[in-house]
């Protein structure tokens, strides 16, 4: 079945289109709206976006593959990103990553068998002063301790 936005997101799109002098400029925001709904950007979404904004599918695919945060494949219900870049690494990010992998029983880049959690490493998330840190879906968790990570992960796996 072809992809379609929910009525509420369709209204949001109309508002977004009003912000820019070209339709193409809505590409990134529209892809975010679609991913919010579908979880990832599949061929059906690419067809929808190119149709909706009068763009070639090649253009939309080019954009999707350029930016890290567009999922090109289905992912878990929750996204866990652990920052691995130097300032966090100086504060123990490697240990946080290893601990998450052990607790979830998966490696970075993988999704738990029940489809609940996808674990990935992130490049600098602008929380260097409160390292180590991780992002879970939309929320930042900073100054992580082992106990805090356990608490966060248990909640996700419930």
């Amino acid at each position, binding site marked *: 079945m072809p992809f379609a936005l929910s009525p509420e997101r369709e209204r949001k799109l109309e508002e977004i289109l009003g*912000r*820019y*002098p*070209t339709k*193409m*400029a*809505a*590409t*990134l*925001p529209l*892809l*975010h709206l679609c991913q919010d709904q579908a979880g990832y950007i599949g061929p059906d979404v690419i067809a929808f976006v190119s149709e909706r*904004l009068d*763009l070639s599918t090649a*253009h939309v695919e*080019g*954009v999707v593959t*350029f*930016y*890290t*945060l*567009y999922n090109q494949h289905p992912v878990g219900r929750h996204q866990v*990103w652990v920052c*691995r*870049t*130097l*300032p966090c*690494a*100086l*504060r*123990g*990010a*490697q*240990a*946080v990553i290893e601990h998450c992998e052990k607790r979830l029983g998966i490696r970075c880049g993988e999704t738990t068998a029940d489809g609940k959690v996808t674990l990935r490493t*992130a*490049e*600098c*998330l*602008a*929380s*260097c*002063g*409160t*390292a*180590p840190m991780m*992002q879970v879906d*939309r*929320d*930042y968790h900073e100054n992580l*301790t*082992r106990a805090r990570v356990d608490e966060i992960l248990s909640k996700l796996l419930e």
Partner: protein
Amino acid sequence: MLKHTDYLTRTYAKPEGWTLATYERDLEGYRVARRVLTTMSRQQVVDEAKKANLRGRGGAGFPMGVKWSFMPKTVGPKPHYLVVNADEGEPGTHKDRTLMECNPHACIEGTIIACYGIGAHVGYIYVRDELHLSKARLEDAIVEAREKGYLGGAPFGSPFPIEIYVHSGAGAYICGEETSMLNSIEGRRGEPRMKPPFPANAGVFGCPTTVNNLETIAAVPTAFGMGCEAFSKLSSLHGIGDGGVRLYGLNGHVKRPQIIELAVGPTLNELIYEVGGGVLGDRGISCVIPGGSSTPVLRPDEIVHAPDAKSPLNPWHGKSVFDVPLGVDTMRGVGTMLGTCCVTVIAHGTDPVACMHNLMQFYRHESCGQCTPCREGAAWLERFCRKVLDGKASLTELDTLHDVANGIMGNTICAFGEGTAMPALAFLQKFRREFESHLRGERSGVEAKLAVEPWS
């Protein structure tokens, strides 16, 4: 000497400090924008802005007022745009986020003044997608300001319509590069453009555009509020055209990592020991990254050499680089860059090769891939470091590492190439002994772990 100020950060500790109510009550918010839009001409705004000596807070340190003056004097058939760069993602940089979360109205008020100064009716604030709280706070602030009539068709009753929109990125460090950001707003892959044409002539949607860092913009109401010259004079480096107050960051192996507002001009020693409380476990310092990962590292045993009395660094001749005030030109003088002023402290006992490897992983991941020297070079640098760490590299390969880094410099469309090569070369030159001892297998006993204290 440290000079604490709280112009940008006064709302930080207040409950609901991000609301319009707090901003108007405690900071006389929007009073400055009202005065500017109702009593000053565009030209007056630009002339005043130049007196602030407000050096761009995003890393390059270009004077804001001068940048504004590059915009066409009269608005032609093509509209003008303001783009505010809040794509904070340089490793070690964590300052803009605090402004968006804790003082979003200063960002909005600054954007209004800047829009007016450059003749733009629309301003886009480009925020990286991960910063959901920052985006929400900015969007709420925009709604509040619009309800009050500070935005829209006639802000403060002035006949100069202004709209501000938040544009979300999608996870690409390179979009912090200004021309890449313009492509990203237009809905394209975030690949940097050739310059010229410069954004002031042909920016977003092919129209004249000014791109300013978010902290630069957030400081505008403060500067105009007290008078731009008075603002500049707060800085101890006012005399060399580096004015005002700014946010300084501390992270890495320091006891009290934080963001703090200070008058421009503290030294590294003051920041690390007086503000940060010293190094974890009272260790010595191996090196610091002065302002984001693209700025070459400094070692505490580096001595300033400026015997010429005319040199701006002459007052510090013979002293440690850690005793030089942190300014755009002073840091350039000691062979690094001020960057974003967020200092990453690296303690003694940390393997510099492992540090460099970690950063090269970042650059390898974030290179946009347009230019061959950068795309391939960043990957080579990362692989070489890995090989050194594994004890499998040879001495000749260390020289190749130099050649690869040098081959990136100056051969790419944007400054990402230099941002990769400069720190790589600094690590190689300043820690040659550590690289060589890896080659001789002497560092096998040294733990390559970067954390000096166990995570618990």
